[in-house]
């Protein structure tokens, strides 16, 4: 293919694209909400009490994300095992679990940091007004870190849409070569030497991302310049 408009149509007619998009939608429906809930609850819980092993906890959450890609292949292959090859419905959960455990750690650190920065006076005022811990988290802390939460939500969604590493890790043991749209784009560009096809698919995948980004930017105060924090 040399590019041109028909490339887009040809790519969309590929028999692998449909299942790949379905896989990604599955991740979006199940694992992204799970990740958001876990990250927020862990960081809010860590913030609400004076926990002695707070450092170690965050490190434990972080470590799976620190393993370099090339080694992670062996690591996750041995965790997932070679016997789920024939059960394709299983593999979806496995890839979701991998992206879950590698993805939450860094966001817990970021949200923990953003929570720690809420000024103590505001929280004390909340306590004086009779908030218990849950109300403090729900009514005060969450609204105050909403920008960071919005940033996290959009990046998690985008990460799920262009998921590449996790299925690629299980490529040899579980035959997930063309599991996600990004992988198919990669196959086009670097295995079939059809760069136009790869880019066409990438651009198609970019459309939902840009729409999401626009929604996020227009519906939040993300674009606002620096403002006085007490307003």
């Amino acid at each position, binding site marked *: 293919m040399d590019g041109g408009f028909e490339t887009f149509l040809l790519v969309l007619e590929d028999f692998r694209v449909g299942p790949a998009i379905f896989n990604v939608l599955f991740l979006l429906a199940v694992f992204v909400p799970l990740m958001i809930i876990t990250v927020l609850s862990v960081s809010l819980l860590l913030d609400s009490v004076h926990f002695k092993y707070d*450092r170690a906890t965050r*490190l434990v959450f*972080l*470590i799976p*994300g*620190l*393993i*370099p*890609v*090339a*080694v992670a292949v*062996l*690591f996750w292959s041995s965790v997932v095992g070679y016997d789920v090859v024939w059960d394709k419905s299983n593999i979806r959960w496995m890839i979701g679990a991998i992206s879950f455990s590698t993805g939450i750690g*860094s966001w817990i*650190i*970021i949200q*923990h*940091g*953003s929570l*720690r*920065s809420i*000024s103590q006076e505001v929280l004390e005022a909340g306590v004086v007004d009779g908030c218990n811990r849950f109300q403090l988290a729900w009514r005060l802390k969450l609204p105050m870190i909403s*920008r*960071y939460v919005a*940033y996290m939500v959009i*990046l998690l969604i*985008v990460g799920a849409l*262009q998921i*590449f590493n996790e299925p690629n890790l299980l490529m040899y043991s579980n035959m997930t070569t063309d599991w996600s749209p*990004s992988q198919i*784009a*990669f196959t086009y*560009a670097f295995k079939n030497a059809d*760069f136009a096809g*790869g*880019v066409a698919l*990438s*651009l198609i*995948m*970019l459309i939902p*991302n*840009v729409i999401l*980004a626009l929604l996020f*930017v227009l519906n939040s105060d*993300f*674009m*606002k*310049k*620096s*403002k*006085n*924090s*007490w307003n």
Partner: protein
Amino acid sequence: MELGSQRRNSRLIKVTLLIMTFWASIPVFWILRDVGRMIFAPIIYFDNGIFFTWLKNTSIFVGSALSISVICCITAGFVLAVLDVPFRRFLLFATLVTMLIPITAMAMPLYVMIDGIGLNDTLLGLILASSFFPFGALLSYLYYTSVLPPDLVGMGRIDGLGDFGIYRYLGIPLSKSLISVVTFFCFVSLWNSYHLPRILLVEPSKSIMSIGIEAFYGQGTTLIAIIMVIPSVLLYLASQKTIARGIFSGAVKE
């Protein structure tokens, strides 16, 4: 005076003791070194010690790319959050979109560009191609929007600071925890970076660790995995205190 000389003497004694202890424990160190060599043998002696070349390349690559991207991220975040630049909204949106483009779509154009200026299969080319970190730029932007309220910038202006002065005397001193967060995440992404180096670096002697470790499959894999994770963990532990102090702790009190 008496006290001072006594303290100096006791320090001298301690140093002498340390030196003598070290001297006495040289045989133990010798054995430890041999034990270390035995444990790390599959790595150290692999292909005439190519591991150390990879280690050197990785440190050059990560060191330079890290410093370039952290400086760029923090400056860009500051400028977008505080100053009146033309096309501010467009620039922000462009940064966001850059992050949304899959690496697959990005890799080939980058390869063509790097190849075009003749830096293919060199560390310099890899450094240039990897020295951008939109995630960090947006994080710095979020940070500065909450840490540098207009009041504070206005005070700086009244005191006669220009744009650069505000960056130098307000932006940088306030950004300790930001720098540690951005450095940590940038380091991890560079240290583990796989796609770009895989495409850009061909010769084994110019390779870096995150790719080179593929050579160790089957022999010493766990060992190399642990070695690869250690720097990130150490950096996390080191930057932990500043991160925990709050990503955005305000400068102005009501």
